[in-house]
């Protein structure tokens, strides 16, 4: 039993969004790979990228492709070894009985979004539709969806797996318009797995083993959603189970989107990342272009046979 200890820093607290990792731990998949993995939750104001860069954590589930690029441009020695959500996981929502019916209607309206990367996506969408972002009253969105539900804003942002559920609890889905960024040619894949450059160079087996076990965990979670939710709920018993079941189903959609059915989970889609990158550079959000081949390394993932990565 010569296990290598490693940690995985999540971008947030335990929830079904991270079910695969919890399942892999519970099922002993990491142990099979010789890894003694500890899952460390995230928190507000805690940055996965810097914790992995500094070596505090071995692996990280970081904010998204955008934050990996930002970290690289700041010289943080991290690389992404896989992308979980193949499409933008968040949508914009408006009430059907409200003033916003189309993207055009965003002009002059109050649109709230998270200033944690999502604002770039919104800007890109608006720009793609020929709308000057300055014409939109863009406001930081707070944790709660209640202000939107109560009509204090016209458009809000919602992750498909979290806030959208909350909104639907209050307002039936039929009465909500969702704006999906991919409909406007904008896609920001998120929830990327990251690792320190040094770890990758010194211990490629560890990285590979981690990926293999994680993928195994996710496949199991998708096949046994009830059990997966149970496992997650064990880590966070105060969560609402219905919500977590819903969340896992949504996460499954996000993780199986795009080219995953052909290439397997955590597929790194360079074309998509390139377009997201270009949008960020054009919009001045990235000071300089980033070498995407160096930032996103598909080697460890490629070492795993595709059939093992398919659910």
């Amino acid at each position: 039993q010569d296990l290598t200890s490693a940690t995985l820093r999540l971008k947030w607290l335990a929830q079904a969004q991270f079910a695969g990792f919890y399942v892999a731990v519970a099922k002993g998949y990491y142990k099979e790979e010789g890894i003694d993995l500890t899952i460390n939750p995230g928190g507000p104001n805690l940055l996965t990228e810097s914790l992995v860069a500094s070596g505090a954590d071995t692996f990280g589930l970081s904010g998204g492709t955008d934050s990996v690029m930002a970290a690289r441009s700041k010289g943080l020695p991290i690389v992404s070894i896989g992308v979980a959500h193949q499409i933008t996981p968040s949508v914009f929502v408006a009430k059907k009985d409200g003033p916003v019916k189309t993207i055009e209607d965003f002009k002059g309206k109050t649109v709230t979004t998270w200033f944690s990367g999502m604002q770039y996506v919104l800007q890109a969408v608006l720009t793609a539709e020929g709308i000057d972002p300055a014409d939109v009253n863009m406001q930081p969105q707070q944790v709660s969806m209640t202000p939107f539900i109560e009509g204090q804003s016209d458009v809000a942002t919602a992750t498909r797996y979290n806030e959208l559920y909350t909104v639907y609890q209050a307002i039936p889905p039929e009465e909500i318009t969702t704006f999906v960024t991919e409909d406007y040619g904008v896609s920001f894949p998120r929830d990327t797995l990251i690792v320190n450059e040094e770890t990758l160079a010194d211990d490629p087996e560890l990285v590979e083993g981690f990926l293999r076990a994680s993928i195994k965990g996710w496949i199991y979670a998708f096949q046994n959603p009830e059990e997966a939710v149970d496992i997650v709920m064990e880590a966070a018993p105060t969560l609402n189970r219905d919500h977590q079941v819903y969340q896992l189903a949504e996460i499954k959609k996000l993780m199986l989107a795009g080219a995953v059915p052909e290439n397997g989970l955590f597929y790194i889609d360079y074309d998509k990342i390139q377009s997201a990158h270009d949008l960020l550079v054009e919009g001045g959000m990235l000071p300089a272009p980033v070498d995407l081949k160096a930032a996103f390394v598909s080697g460890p993932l490629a070492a795993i046979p595709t059939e093992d990565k398919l659910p």
Partner: protein
Amino acid sequence: MSAASGTLSVRAGAGEPLLRLARPVVGVAIFLIAAEALVSVLDLPVTTVPRPSVIAAEIARAPSTYAGAVWRTFLESFLGFVAGGIFGVATGVVFSRSRTLREMFLPLFVISQTIPVIAFGSIIVLWFGNTLLAKGVIAFYLSFFPVTVNTLIGFRAVDPQQVALMRSFGASEGQLLRRLFLPTALPQIFVALRLGAALSLVGAIVGEWFGDVTGLGVLLLQAMYNENYAALWAAIVLSAVLGLALYGLVALAERRIVFWGSEQ
């Protein structure tokens, strides 16, 4: 930055101990019933205040989790509080002895208290990991300062005549410290400790926001981001209970240790 004010005595009329215990229990019961009725009658939305019974049901849903969280947060606070108390007294002693050290470092202590800890969570995690120790460190960081200050104030209150008397008996510096300075300063130190108990709890809760798996801070965050108001209130109520318990613990220790009261 003198840490606060004297004691507030909520005058609990003398009486049999049983009666003294019963009174607050009855008071709390009345409060809960009134709150339940009021919220029901006014039909307040859960986002404003849930009924007490809803909060109770939430806690009953996962009692061991809530208990575990309270215990964990208690341990963190306690660790930080004890460390803060010891460090506070120690620095108070050192600062009262050496004017140079005091004038050099006390201002830095003040400055340290103007820095919001939450801003450098990454550093804490980096240095202390995801451990109990990490939260303890934050609890410590928030609680030591009032103790330092009040130890200093307490020492300054020592009667020079009393010092002269002890010295005339041939007392050494150590004897002076142990038999005179520390006991004299104890009432002041306890004022700071009561404050420190509350601050250490804040530290522990905020510390748990730096990526932890359990604790009231975690539950608070989780409830907040999931918009689970019953769970949010459950965490708030339990924080209050823990806060009162910590305060009570210190007050109890104070009653036993500083039985003579501050004579002024």
